[in-house]
């Protein structure tokens, strides 16, 4: 469904991605783990052309999108939940959700809203509250809900557990799994929290210095000694 082929990306002189090849199949949860600065977020952002891939191609549904406009890519069925949530703080929860559906058929709006309520009952209770007054976990749910309002074919989550309390982290991962199992949503998940991410992922990739150094099913990676040594043993205490 989504295919990166030998993708390179630069920030000025910094070579952030060095020939990444990966794919996401329909109905999968694919996770991307790696340390800070490994290029995880860059990998996700190049999908939207920020920064553009300097070499290689990114294709979505069989079409090369690496030269498309950012807004066209986002409208083509890829919904990104950006790192750090980026909700519209001074707008109401409802308006935030409305922004998510800004390019979809208004006829779906009510049904989609009901679906979001079902998934995140807390959002329904807070509907008219200013989004900035929600707690961090609620904001993350709002960000996910907002992305889902656009009826994406692939949901991309950039560090959804960042800065959340353990209870919320668990809840967020449960929601991601549920989305995939119940609705068949294809999900690409970038995470530092390797343990949680690999547990719910069908497949995973490990990124290091802009290169994929390891890949396999979630279970394989969880069991792999390299992954354990680099990402799990230390994070287990965190």
């Amino acid at each position, binding site marked *: 469904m989504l295919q990166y082929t030998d993708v390179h990306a630069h920030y000025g002189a910094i070579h952030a991605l060095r020939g990444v090849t990966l794919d996401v199949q329909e109905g999968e949860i694919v996770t991307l783990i790696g340390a800070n600065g490994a290029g995880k977020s860059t990998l996700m952002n190049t999908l*939207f052309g*920020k920064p553009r891939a300097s070499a290689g191609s990114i294709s979505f549904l069989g079409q090369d999108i690496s030269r498309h*406009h*950012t*807004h*066209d*890519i*986002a*409208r083509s069925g890829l*919904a*990104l*939940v*950006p790192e750090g949530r*980026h*909700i*519209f*703080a*001074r*707008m*109401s929860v*409802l*308006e935030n959700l*409305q*922004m*998510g559906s*800004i*390019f979809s058929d208004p006829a779906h709006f009510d049904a989609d809203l009901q679906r979001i309520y079902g998934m995140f009952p807390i959002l329904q209770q807070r*509907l*008219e*509250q*200013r989004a900035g*007054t929600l707690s961090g976990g609620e904001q993350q749910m709002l*960000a996910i809900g*907002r*992305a889902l309002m*656009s009826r994406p074919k692939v949901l991309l989550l950039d560090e959804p557990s960042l800065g959340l309390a353990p209870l919320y982290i668990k809840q967020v991962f449960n929601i991601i799994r549920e989305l995939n199992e119940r609705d068949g949503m294809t999900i690409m998940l970038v995470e530092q929290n390797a343990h949680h991410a690999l547990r719910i992922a069908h497949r995973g990739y490990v990124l290091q210095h802009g290169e994929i150094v390891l890949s396999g099913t979630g279970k394989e990676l969880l069991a792999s000694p390299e992954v354990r040594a680099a990402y799990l043993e230390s994070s287990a205490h965190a």
Partner: protein
Amino acid sequence: MTTFQARTHTVTLTERLKDATNVALIAILLGIPMIGLHTVDAGGKLMVATRWPWLLAFVATMFFGRLALQFAIDQFKLKRLTRQRTRTLEVATPRPWLKWLGYGLLGFSLVLPIAFSDNRYVVDTATTVLIYVMLGWGLNVVVGLAGLLDLGYVAFYAVGAYSYALLSTQFGWNFWETLPVAGALAALFGILLGWPTLRLRGDYLAIVTLGFGEIIRVILINWTEFSGGPNGIGSIERPSFFGLPFKPDSDDGATFASFFGLEYASEHRVIFLYYLILVLALLTNLFIARLRKLPVGLAWEAVREDEVACKALGMNVTNVKLSAFAIGAMLGGFAGVFFAARQGFISPESFVFSESATILAIVVLGGMGSQFGVVIAASLLVILPELGRDFSEYRMLLFGAAMILIMVWKPGGLISRREPSKVLAGVEK
């Protein structure tokens, strides 16, 4: 936890005294040359004399004044803290009283010229208020909704005014013919300004827009063949009442007075102009209220809140910003056309930076994004200096003090809570 700390943390007496001593020291430093020393005329010579008692009094005032001020501020903060704690979660529900107040004001503005038909000054001032309301609403789109700090808004006002002045004096266009053209021209200038500044935000955008405003003014001053330079453009045709001019009776055609069988009075035009700007302002308000409910209005606010999220949601941030610039500029252009039509004479003098600053002050004081706040702030900013005329040279001082007080009392502007654009019916709270 944090609230507990905030409650128990009180400033100790020593801290207070230290703070006041610091202030007193600064007072001494400043006070020695400014108060402690002065010059006296001693037989044709200037002598430096001292007045230490004055200095002492000054320093003492500063010291005790600071203590009292600190105490007052602490009390104020404590009060606010307790109030915040008791306040329930902020829910953005619409406030019905605001709506009724709005209707009340609308009714008042409708009957105002009738109630004050013998007082030209009041109607004139009200017309000025309405011009600023309209400008405020226009700038509110750019600054309040889209969050793009524009310090050169007066440029669009000038574009509108000069469009009408030139089209009417050179080509004999009338008010209504010019209005859409001038609006379109101003919108074009808005895009012209918006295009190169798309990637700028905050301070940097403010500097460029400030420059843009000045460029337009300097061009108007220097391009004499085009704009009449500093002399401006005079004898601009006044708007007529559906073709009936406001003139004393004469042989060439019907006038407003003769058509309605009235005695000619110069007030007719004043009142007509008032209603004209009232209608324009109301249309502007409806237009913006409508836009706010449409995706484009929501998109403006979303861009103000978070550009990254907007891009992630597939919004074309470029177009969103340009549309805000264009529509804001267009409304400024309309106000400019009216201004030229009302004055009958325009010159670059009317489009200086302080105008931009006043309009921005209206938006900020009113509460960014609030339509109603703009009305109150525009009324204040126009009427306060008028009221202050009796205080002659102290008038700007009073004006400044009033502005500071508003910002202290309501840091987010007079109406800082934004009304949600969409409310679902039957939502359980």
